[in-house]
């Protein structure tokens, strides 16, 4: 997808508490600043970070604003159906905020599920991955899924890099325009505890993303 500099970029990031949804949002926002983005406005939810809840963030930016304020980015929440990218760190969370998706949305999906307590207690059913993907495919064919958790466990012996890996995985879909890989790397070096591992995770994701795009096309 080709974006104009005046377009408002809308990215939903959804996952569960502790998966690094807010960290990922911050990374994109701070990288967009390095990319010279003119306006940035996005909401995140605080307050229940440790407690297994569903976490969503709205990342929104506009490289160049219009003179006419009515056409500019002014709300930190994405309008229904307006997301151009939906990063799902957990499969069921791909559906929970589905109201923000439409035929213009690309989905990148981590296939590893994190069932909530009601699933463990056998009091609710978790939809199958196939069922979830089918729902997403009804939006568009731009659904890219991978077991990011498994890959991160294999490469880093930890699932802490899943969020950064998924960002890398999303980059080749060209839905986070105007931000270069170097911008992410700079932010990671400045703000992250273990920059080396996170930059490796970013590149691992980018490579996997490129492979999937090649295979898909």
């Amino acid at each position, binding site marked *: 997808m080709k974006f104009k500099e005046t377009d408002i970029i809308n990215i939903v990031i959804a996952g*569960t*508490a502790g998966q690094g949804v807010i960290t990922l949002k*911050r990374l994109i*926002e701070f990288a967009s*600043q390095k990319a010279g983005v003119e306006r*940035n*406005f*996005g*909401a*995140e*939810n*605080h*307050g*229940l970070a*440790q*407690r*297994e*809840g569903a976490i969503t963030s709205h990342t929104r930016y506009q490289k160049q604003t219009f003179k006419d*304020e*009515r*056409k500019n*980015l*002014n*709300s*930190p*929440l*994405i*309008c*229904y*159906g*307006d997301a151009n990218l939906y990063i799902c760190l957990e499969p*069921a*969370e791909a*559906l*929970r905020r*589905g*109201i*923000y*998706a*439409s035929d*213009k949305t690309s989905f990148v999906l981590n296939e590893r599920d994190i*069932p*909530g*307590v*009601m*699933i*463990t*207690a*056998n*009091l*609710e*059913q978790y*939809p199958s991955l196939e069922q979830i993907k089918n*729902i997403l495919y*009804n939006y568009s064919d731009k659904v890219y899924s991978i077991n990011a958790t498994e890959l991160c466990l294999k490469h880093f012996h930890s*699932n802490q890099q899943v969020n950064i890996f998924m960002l890398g995985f999303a980059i080749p879909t060209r839905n986070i325009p105007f931000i270069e890989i170097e911008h992410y790397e700079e932010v990671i070096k*400045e*703000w*992250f*505890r273990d920059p080396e591992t996170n930059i490796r995770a970013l590149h691992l994701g980018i490579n996997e993303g490129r492979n999937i795009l090649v295979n898909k096309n």
Partner: protein
Amino acid sequence: MKNDTRFIQEEGRVLMLGNEALVRGCLESGVSYVSQYPGTPTSDIGEYFHQVLRENPEIGEYLVHHWAVNEAVAASACAGAAWTGCRVLNPMKHVGLNVASDALSVISLNGPNPGAMVISVGSDPGSLGSHQEQNERFYAWMFHIPTIEPHTPQECKDWIKLAFILSEKHDLVINLRTSTRSAHSRGFVELSSLVKGKSKGEFIRNIPKFNSLPPHAINNHIRLYERIEKLRESIPRLDINKIIEGDNRIGIITSGMPFGYTIEALNQLELNDVPILKLGMIYPLNYEQIIEFIHPLEKVIIIEELEPFLEMKIAEISQKRKINVEIIGEKYLPKYNEYSTGLIATNLAKIFSKKPNERINKAINYFNSYKDIIPSRFPTFCAGCPERATLYSILKATNHLENTIICGDIGCYVMSFFPPQECSDLIICMSGGLSAAIGMSTKTDQKVLAMIGDSTFFHTGMSPLAEAVGYNSNILLIIFENSWTAMTGHQDDVLRYLINQGFSIENICKAIGVPWLRIEDSYKPKTLTSTIKEALKTEGLKVIIIKRECALQAHKWRLSQIRKLEEEGKKIQDISYYIGGCQLCYECAQILSCPAIRRINTQGIEEMQIDQDRCIRCGVCYEVCPNGAIRKSIINLLEEEVPFREI
């Protein structure tokens, strides 16, 4: 990792959340005292002040931040500091304003001069982090608290600075009202220079001003009207209300975050000729400015979240001035829950008789077609949480709350009502559970339990406990002494100090005369269950204190001890729990429901598994498994054991 310089660098353009920008605005205003009780969406304000003070000790020469024990204490403490001539900030969540209101009613009457006092109330339309979504804007009318509502982080920073100037100039308490969305959305902020606050002030006696009792109470009330009128007149000069011109005969008045949704919704509907008045100050209103805006229009839509506050006032003005314009808002827009661009666009389409935006409609309809299969994911107690383990014992001791009422309260245990445990029958407010239990126990023979955490106990819990002792109420009170204000993120100066001094809730209970008192550990569920049973057979007031540290903190501390010992080259016991021969009775999943346990399906065979990454080794599931299927493995049995710390 570099230090976060955004709060202290002299100039530049930085990305900040609304709350971060608000803190920056305070540092540019010479604020020298801040006091607050934590509560979403304002808790992080204090955390940023703490960060600034930790990283820049020189700022501590003039700036003091207190985590107060409750909001009323915080409000009065702030007034005290303001009356020595300092600029003070008092953040609180919307329901915190209820607690602070008794103090604020008088502080606003007296006025904060010679200093300045700004409160920052975090509203929460949609109850995103609160037990309810009250529209606390009406306090502005009641106490004459001028209220400024920012939309972007830049406005958060600029307008809190303005609030301090106005507070000082007009002797008024000013509210910079945020919402969960404006507090926790990030955008660019242009910085200005930092201003040092006063390290010392001086209180100058002024009995009529600071003693609002007859006859001074009435004089101060008259003076309050005069102060408000002066401010009202000055509004057009403050450049805080903005008009976006347009030729449409239908116009919109809005403020704060709903402005952002509205302007984007209009763009979605291609209605870019609608005039908009964006109010920065929502109380008091400058009538002339509003009349000028609505006069040429046929219809004015007021867009505001929750109950109509602006709409009532604007309808009143237009009626009194006999302006023939239709004022609408609540007729089309909901008076509950938070707004969004999609919701406003859908409703504006109706008002303007436009075809709804097709993408929005499709998005809503398709989402509605599958949303029922989305599994629920509500917040729950952390793995190893001592409160979860206590609920397990309560459920076992009462045969799943048979003939038993359990009064919940605010803290992590507010989550008790969620399934599968469903172990809370009612929630009112901070320490409302124990108070409700006092009345309830006089009118029913059902067994009455109440729960309270230590931070809530210090907030307002000691008073109802004194009353329960006084009437020997037939209640079992469970006090969770986990030694942290856990729910809001462990902001604990006072609690930590008291605990480090060896002070405990046990001492307070003894001193206040609790007739039946036991100290228990919820990691020993069998003993706790029998103690609860014993308590419920006993008439009168019973208190069980659960002494067990918050699992998040306990786990963090234990891991750091292990790391330290390992660095010293010591071997330590490595304990883990695993499941073998599970009978799928669901005792651990339905009644304890620890999130470290998950159900897996391997080639058609269902079994339970303990997630080793999440398990903190509390051992409660091992204790409760009726089939002995949860096993304990100890590697390095003869080496040093690192238990959780005692509190």
